[in-house]
């Protein structure tokens, strides 16, 4: 049974890198009936935005030209970034038998918040360098997609750990409380700046959803539901045992209240200066007139309405082959509706003495290009502690790569 527990432990890193089923929900410990866990995950990754840039941005520092240059050097045809903050608690009751089936029953309370985007190099350049570099040129603002979402999740579910032999089948149902949402989808967008700056022309076809802005971040602005499905089956490859698992997480929606905001417009704006009738009208000319609120009211006329919004859902497929003290996992994850392009990875696990275990993952895709992650786990008696450092390139070379992630989890088993 200990070997089986280690086998499950090997899934931990992949579950952290992308939202998958926590193995504590599905494992079958030999000694205790109950498991409780607490976890937290903060993660940032990008194809172009370096860790150093992101850290300075988050800290509210001045963004120097050298920091901007770091990002410019990484710009591709399409760029992405993602930042997440997730944490929660869960509890599992293991191995209750109903008929011939053995079940784990679980519940979880989670907070999830995401911000992710796909953007063109011109969007970054315009925002960080201004439009002067585009004098006489067109800046292409598409594709541009931004999603900011935060919600909380109350989940109950069960896992049959002996489904059709040694396979496992799990399902979780969640009630969701929506907090904040901002999505912008710029389908077409171009900004032309006259060579001498005599006019600026913007054409834009954009759609945006936004939650009620009158409350603070803790306000509940909507409700929803989601479902998680999990299936894992053993296989034998030569004389090696392995498992293959498929899961879908967060397949659901949020319904935002009727104070939410919606914008959709395909139009073009031509600006050639503020008109005044005489020199004395200078006293009425002010940069205050170009404030964020006034421009938003003038050009971005939101309408209030309720709407459904599909939350980001994750499809995960992976296989894990047991090589004794080593395991090899190959997998693929994709997050839908979140500017993700899919992530493939290979992961090796090594089990050490005294309950230590470590894993190293190498992957490609997601919101970055090359990714490496490392996990350490210590199991002692009834407790397990895990720490994962994600996006090692971004942590080790923060001026060149974009990414930093930390996952912490503590699990405690108790009962008979």
């Amino acid at each position, binding site marked *: 049974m200990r070997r089986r527990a280690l086998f499950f432990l090997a899934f931990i890193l992949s579950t952290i890198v992308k939202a998958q089923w926590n193995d504590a929900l599905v494992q079958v410990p030999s000694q205790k009936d109950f498991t409780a866990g*607490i976890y937290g995950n903060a993660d940032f990754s990008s194809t172009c935005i370096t860790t150093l840039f992101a850290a300075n941005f988050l800290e509210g520092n001045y963004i120097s030209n050298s920091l901007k240059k770091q990002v410019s050097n990484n710009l591709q045809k399409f760029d992405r970034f993602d930042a997440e903050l997730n944490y929660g608690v869960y509890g599992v009751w293991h191995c209750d038998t109903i008929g011939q089936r053995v079940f784990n029953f679980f519940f979880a309370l989670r907070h999830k918040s995401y911000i992710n985007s796909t953007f063109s190099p011109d969007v970054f350049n315009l925002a960080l360098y*201004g439009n002067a570099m585009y004098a006489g040129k067109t800046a292409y603002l598409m594709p541009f997609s931004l999603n900011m979402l935060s919600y909380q999740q109350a989940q109950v579910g069960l896992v049959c750990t002996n489904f059709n032999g040694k396979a496992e089948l799990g399902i979780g149902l969640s009630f969701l409380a929506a907090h904040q949402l901002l999505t912008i989808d710029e389908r077409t967008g171009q900004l032309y*700046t006259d060579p001498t700056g005599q006019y600026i022309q913007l054409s834009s076809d954009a759609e945006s959803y936004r939650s009620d802005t009158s409350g603070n971040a803790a306000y509940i602005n909507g409700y929803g539901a989601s479902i998680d499905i999990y299936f894992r089956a053993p296989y034998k490859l030569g004389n090696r045992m392995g498992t293959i698992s498929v899961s879908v997480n967060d397949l659901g929606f949020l319904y935002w209240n009727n104070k939410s905001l919606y914008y959709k417009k395909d139009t073009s704006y031509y600006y050639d*200066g503020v*008109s005044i009738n005489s020199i004395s009208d200078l006293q009425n000319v*002010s*940069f205050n007139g170009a404030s964020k609120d006034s421009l938003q009211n003038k050009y971005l006329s939101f309408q209030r309405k309720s709407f459904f919004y599909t939350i980001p859902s994750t499809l995960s497929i992976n296989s894990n082959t047991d090589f004794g003290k080593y395991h090899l996992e190959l997998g693929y994850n994709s997050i839908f509706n979140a500017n993700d392009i899919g992530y493939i990875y290979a992961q090796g696990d090594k089990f050490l003495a005294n309950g230590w275990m470590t894993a190293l993952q190498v992957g490609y895709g997601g919101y970055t290009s090359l990714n490496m992650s490392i996990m350490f786990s210590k199991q002692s008696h009834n407790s397990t502690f895990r720490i994962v450092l994600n996006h090692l390139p971004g942590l080790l070379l923060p001026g060149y790569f974009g990414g930093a992630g930390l996952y912490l989890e503590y699990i405690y088993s108790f009962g008979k």
Partner: protein
Amino acid sequence: MQQAFPLMTKAKKILILFLVIVGIVSCRKNSGPSWDTQILAPLIKTTLSINNIVTGVNTVNNSDSSVTLVLHDSLYSLNLDSLLRIPDTTLANVYGDIPFPIAVSPGQSILPTGIDSVTNYHIGSANLTKAIIRSGYVKFKVKSTILAVTDFSYVVPSAKLNGQPLTIKLTVPAAVQNGNSRIKGVDSVILPLDNYNVDFTGPMHNAYNTIITRLTGILDPNAQNYTLNYLDSVIITATFYSIVPEYGQGYFGESKKTIGPSKSVFSLFNKITGGNLNLKNVNVNFTLENGFGVDGRLYIDSLISMNSRPGGINIPLTASIVHNAININRAQETAIPSSPVIPSVQRFSLNSSNSNIVQWMDNLPTAIDYKLQLTTDPLGNVSGNTDFAYYGYGIKTYFDISVPLYLAANNLTLEDTMPVSFATSSQAKQIKSGTFTLYASNLFPFSAGLQIYLLDNNMHVTDSILSPAQTIAAGIPNANGMVTTPDNSILTIPLDSYHANLLFTTKNIIVKAIFNTGCSTCIPVKYSKIYDTYQLNIKLIGNFDYQVKG
């Protein structure tokens, strides 16, 4: 103990570690990140015609599309309140010293009855026969030592509103015996006199300043029988105050007023601070308008063009209207309530052939210094008490000035001080150095040198923006003297961070423009005509560092 709570101990460590990480994230600065951007954008655009350049003055387009400035400038006016002033007046009646007791019944008179009082109303030197009151009040007050309630009525038959005489009724409480003395019963009432017609000709309609009043007093019908004796007395006052006439008729009396030396601000050139202006021609009408039914006579001692700018001089007007008495005819009544008066108007045209008015105007006066003598009814009561005056009408003197914009300007300097608020202080800090470019397309046949001065809170100049001042080139006239193709100029205004911050935080600026119409030394003077088709198109482009604050 530690072994007894292994879960708590480890959970605490994990929690603390996680909180430290989250804390690092959450302990970021309150202010968001900031970075510098280079913004290239149009800021201000305008198309200025002559109407936009010359503000505060009306313009007229002539048949040849040239433009003439038209200005109405008041000099002096004599209003009704100066001609006819009705002072506050109190009319008093005292009744007492009753020689022997008189028994009176309720409702019976306690005052002598049957005789209207004829009262002379003092109105200065005027002999008023009729008036309509625009506003004013009468306060009627009675003090009585009669130990019974009494009723009084005060009627002015010569003051009527809608045909009804002015009537005031008052019930006065009984006096109270207090030992050997009495506490008087007192009451008063105030009535407005608006729109009352007052006949001042007395009972025989052949007098002036005379009104008729009728006073009655009775023992209140609800009082008990009462015997008047020597201790009983009544003091009755009627005070007319704050009287403003709407109309007056009579003979207002000969009055001679010396006006001035006084200064009247002349606004046409008030934004010009220097330089020379040569006008090809100027037409000025000096107008005397008499809205009173009173003869008058005006004597102009002086009309001086005062240039109070540094180095400016004063030029007296030389014309036939100066130092010659001008008789002013009286106005006529129309009997039309909405327009009751046809004023008598006399105009005196001043031009280059009968006066020095062109030089007088070329002096760019900031004010007109004048001294006048105005006499009303100089021939006495020749109208037989039919002088009249209406509120809102009077004797006025003013100039109607027409300045055809056919001129030569030599360093003609216009300055305008104006409040500005380009940005809040926080926004101003976000705008760093940059270059502002002014694109000008000018059809006017004059160049304009520009400078902008920044003022501190004490309105002192602290700095300038253009260094040195730059010039918008003049449009070049064709063979017909008309500019048909604009001349384009590009003015570059570099601003370092210090001046940018100063510009965007300043609250007041002076815009200074120096105009030249070309040849300043030509003899004879080369004049340029301004047409209504002329325009100055301006667009200001900013190319500046802007610090974005997240």
